[in-house]
């Protein structure tokens, strides 16, 4: 069973404070749908930052796609980042770029030709229901629309892992439900999904999803399911 993400005794300390994350060990399997929960300040964002290579751990081993990324030379990291899509909690859309250009960013970073980029971005805009807002700047979009742009941007380059930090934090229940449907659709296409949330009822809505819980920087595995392969993975395994 090959793990797409592996954390072994990972610790993270900001400055001289006590450890924000301690002895975090887990494996995520390709094609799984994972929720990361915990109280505010428990360290969810910190753990995701380690996962999407925005932060180096103070100790421990992190393996992505089978390679130890902690000791990897800096110039090899971009290649790994391109395989991970991120929906930031605050979206981080580029304010002076249109919705279209924001969504196109990962493809352009990867050097895709413009004709293909155009086809992909147009399709993606329609998929998230923003076909008529292609030229709109983020500031002129509603919160929900901005979020959909952020999600479209995170998934446009078909990442192997999609990381979303509290994606339902500032949307109503109906929008949250639709977001999950979107994530499930991506998951069915083979993308491993990792969603940080403190919205517990949300978790029950995704069939087969597994849960990790952070408590003051330490990971617990309340369902015990992390030790077993996810159902999706089991279903597609030969």
């Amino acid at each position, binding site marked *: 069973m090959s793990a797409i993400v592996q954390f072994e005794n990972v610790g993270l300390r900001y400055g001289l404070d006590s450890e924000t994350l301690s002895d975090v060990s887990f494996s995520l399997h390709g094609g799984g749908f994972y929720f990361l929960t915990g109280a505010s300040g428990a360290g969810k964002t910190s753990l995701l930052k380690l996962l*999407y*290579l*925005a*932060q*180096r751990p103070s100790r421990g081993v992190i393996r992505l796609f089978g390679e130890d990324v902690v000791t990897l030379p*800096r*110039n090899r*990291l*971009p*290649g*790994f*980042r*391109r395989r991970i899509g*991120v929906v930031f909690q605050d979206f*981080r859309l*580029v*304010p*002076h*770029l249109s919705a279209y*250009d924001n969504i*196109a*960013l*990962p493809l*352009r*970073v*990867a050097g895709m*030709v*413009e*004709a293909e*980029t155009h086809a992909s971005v147009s399709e993606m805009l329609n998929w998230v229901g923003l076909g008529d807002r292609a030229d709109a700047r983020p500031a002129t979009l509603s919160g929900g629309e901005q979020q959909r742009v952020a999600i479209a941007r995170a998934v446009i380059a078909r990442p192997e892992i999609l990381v979303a930090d509290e994606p339902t934090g500032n949307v109503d229940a109906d929008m949250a439900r639709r977001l999950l449907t979107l994530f499930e659709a991506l998951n069915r296409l083979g993308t491993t999904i990792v969603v940080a949330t403190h919205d517990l009822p949300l978790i029950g809505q995704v069939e087969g999803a597994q849960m990790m819980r952070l408590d003051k920087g330490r990971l617990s595995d309340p369902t015990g399911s992390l030790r077993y392969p996810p159902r999706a993975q089991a279903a597609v395994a030969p």
Partner: protein
Amino acid sequence: MTGADRRAAAAARHRLLPEGRVAGPMPWVIAIMMFLTVLAAAAGLGLGTAVQSVGAELAGRVTVQIVEANADRREDYSGRAVRLLRKSPDVRTLHPVDPAVLADQIRPWLGEEAVSGDLPIPALIDVELTPGSTQAKVARLRAILATLSPSIRIEPHAAFLQPLGQLLAALGGLAAGIVLLMAVATAAIVVLAARAAHDSHRGTIDVLHLMGATDVQIARLFQRRIGLDALFGGLLGFTVALLVILLLGARLTATGSDLVGAIRLSWIGWLVLAALPLGGVLLATLAARWTVLRSLGRLL
């Protein structure tokens, strides 16, 4: 990839940094620097040419003066000196200065008496030496002429124009130093501007970085913008400096002085001046690239 596709991709890249100048007042500062740099370089090059032509003119030239009050004896010495000098292997050409011409030249200084013959005017022989050490040749000629009469003096031109040549050379060196200092100051301005631009676009950079953009990809955005800003400033400063140089050149020529007129720009000089704005753009681009790469290197 088609040409249209490449253009579209380039346009998309260029949109990543917002429209307008990224570097604040930098282009204007560069314009001022380029203006001063071009002027200093023009002065240095012009003086360099003057030093060379004055030097070449003077190096192998001496004047033989026969300071003899008695006109007959003066003419006699002059004729014998000419014959002696003709035989010397150190002399390439010589020509006795016509007393009438000399009288014309000094009339404004000494008045009509100079021409009347009452006032003794030395006879002069202009001598051009063969190439080689002027000092040794002058010493030999002096020894030969001394056998003729102690009233015959030999005066190398370089001796009395040397301090002027040295002054011109020192000014030229100063100009070169100013050009170098300007280059250093320009690089420093660009580093500050690139740092400021980098800081004010931090959000965009972080997003690109986390999407897997390489440092070089991100640095290129800034180096292009700052290079363009520097091009604008450089061309502006260069154009104004060029106008000033042309006006000054006209004034120099108008003085009618041989020495001042020797301050001239060769075509190589013009090429060097034209290369300055290009050098400025290159310097700005490299400084911006270096600065941004260094800042990015601090990210994971």
